[in-house]
């Protein structure tokens, strides 16, 4: 059942309300604009699309349009940060932190500049724009940076909380957002803390733990419910903080469940599954299956069609759970 302690959206299974996580980013920035005069926002010609338009209208003196120039935007932000500002740079993730990866590496990460990177249009749910605009490697290329913080909010409400929380954290943060509407799972009352995972679905004597990051938590919960009806018991852990991982929370679940399925709208290589397996193989090896893009780019299409075609949905998750439980018995 949905973990009652986390005050999740109880209506999720009946009529799932939907909103894009980028909306939460925009709302979080508006709140920050009022709270913290040091927060500044930079855009690379994607102001409306990355939902920073309202911040730009309300705080024009703290908004910097950089044009279609993501490398420059990243380094300008680093300059603002070392001068005491808290810059949020906003673009599509394939361009930022994709195209400007080395600029961020040198001027923000190695330089320890307090820059927040808002990467949008992540995952194949970017849909009709096609694989050029569907960022599916961004977790891999950011979590490999030393002492980086990588956050993938599961819904629009968590996206707002993560955005606000990131400004209160001293150091570079990558925040990953989606374009399309995805189910709202949490509520305003659901606790959120950078670096902490949340046990969203819980049962007695679970046989596997589904570790999900980002919007696919909705598919993971649907899978968990159907599995329960079929007599298969799982827990579902929402891991919005891919780096640093919530080591205690993850170890507790893996000890209890004995097998793991990772779920993410990202390449299997280098994403949450990679992070979990690197950690578990050193600390608590357990059978593990991966749900994510399998060594392929996706294509144009509707988000729901793509989730099904590329095996990221509840059917794929259920299969992975059954497979990992079977492996556990061997």
């Amino acid at each position, binding site marked *: 059942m949905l973990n009652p302690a986390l005050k999740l959206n109880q209506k999720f299974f009946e009529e799932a309300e939907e909103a894009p996580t980028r909306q939460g980013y925009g709302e979080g920035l508006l709140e920050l604009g009022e709270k913290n005069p040091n927060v500044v926002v930079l855009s690379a010609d994607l102001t409306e699309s990355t939902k920073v338009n309202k911040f730009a209208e309300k705080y024009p003196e703290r908004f910097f349009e950089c*044009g279609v120039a993501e490398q420059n935007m990243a380094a300008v932000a680093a*300059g603002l940060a070392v001068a005491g*500002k808290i810059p949020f740079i906003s673009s599509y993730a394939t361009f930022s932190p994709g195209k400007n990866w080395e600029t961020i590496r*040198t001027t923000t990460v190695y330089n320890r500049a307090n820059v927040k990177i808002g990467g949008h249009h992540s995952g194949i749910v970017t849909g009709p724009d096609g694989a050029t605009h569907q960022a599916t490697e961004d977790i891999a290329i950011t979590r490999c940076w030393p002492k980086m913080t990588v956050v993938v909010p599961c819904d629009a409400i968590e996206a707002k909380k993560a955005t606000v929380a990131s400004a209160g954290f001293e150091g570079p943060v990558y925040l990953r957002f989606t374009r399309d509407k995805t189910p709202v799972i949490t509520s305003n009352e659901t606790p959120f803390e950078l670096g902490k995972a949340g046990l969203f679905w819980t049962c007695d004597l679970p046989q596997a733990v589904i570790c999900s990051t980002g919007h696919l938590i909705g598919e993971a919960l649907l899978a968990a419910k159907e599995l329960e009806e079929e007599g298969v018991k799982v827990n579902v852990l929402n891991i919005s903080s891919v780096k640093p991982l919530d080591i205690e929370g993850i170890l507790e679940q893996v000890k209890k469940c004995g097998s793991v399925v990772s779920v993410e709208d990202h390449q299997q290589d280098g994403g949450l599954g990679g992070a979990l397996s690197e950690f578990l193989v050193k600390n608590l090896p357990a059978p593990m299956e991966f749900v994510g893009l399998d060594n392929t780019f996706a294509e144009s299409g509707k988000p729901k069609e793509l989730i099904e075609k590329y095996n990221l949905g509840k059917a794929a998750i259920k299969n992975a759970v059954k497979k990992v439980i079977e492996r556990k018995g061997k």
Partner: protein
Amino acid sequence: MIDELHEEKLKDLEEKAVKARELVIETLVEAGSGHTAGPLGMTDIFVAFYFHILNHKPENPFWEERDRLVLSNGHICPIQYVTMAMAGYFPIAELKTLRKVNSRLQGHPHRSSLPGLETTSGPLGEGISQSIGMALAAKMDGKNHHIYCLTSDGEHQEGNTWEAMMMAPRYKLDNLCVVIDRNNIQIDGFTENVMPLEPLHDKYRAFNWHVIDVDGNNIHEFVDAVKQANSTHQQPTVIIAHTVPGKGVSFMENRFEWHGMPPDTSEVLGAPPKGEQAKKALLELKMIRETTKNQHK
């Protein structure tokens, strides 16, 4: 405000420049790797900054009102380290640690390793952008300090440089002054053979910058150009400083082979044999020092 550069101060700066070049050679020989031509070519400009132009406090490197000196082409850091040490940021003896393990003097500058560095640099084309960020922040905060960004000519082949060149005039950053080390060389050869930059002056003009050309090995001329830059309104300034790479050492001057190599590590046509290059270089610099002193008497 930059002080008047009277004759006596100029003499002092010129003598410091010779001392700085000697330290560059000694430091590079000790390190066993690093760049030589650029640091020697930019010595006069670094001396002008650290001993005359900058409003700074070496004993308090985080002083908020300080002018920011941003080095974009981080590979010429030996001359920045040398002039910082001479100015009192850290002991001159520490120069011996350059490029060695446990040193604050990284092969390319790392801001958080050494107080007084404003940026982490080495990968080219990123300094003007970071300076723009600092200049925007200064404007937001109503601060009057200047942001000086030192760049190379070679890094004007990086796309990022041109992105930044578009942005600074858009925000009318008259607190920003970019200096280009126009020494015409890069690793693979002469800039105009590798990837032509000319007409560089006209290109900056077309991007709406205030452009000044100077002899970058003439301290007096350079200081005047910076004064002009600081009195410009509503527009960023670029000073194209024409320098002689390897300046002061005859067998290194204008030779691109010395871009990324220290003395005594390899044979270069026309140079003394390995092992004698540093000795010859220091001897030539000693002669320059004596000539400078005599001129000033």
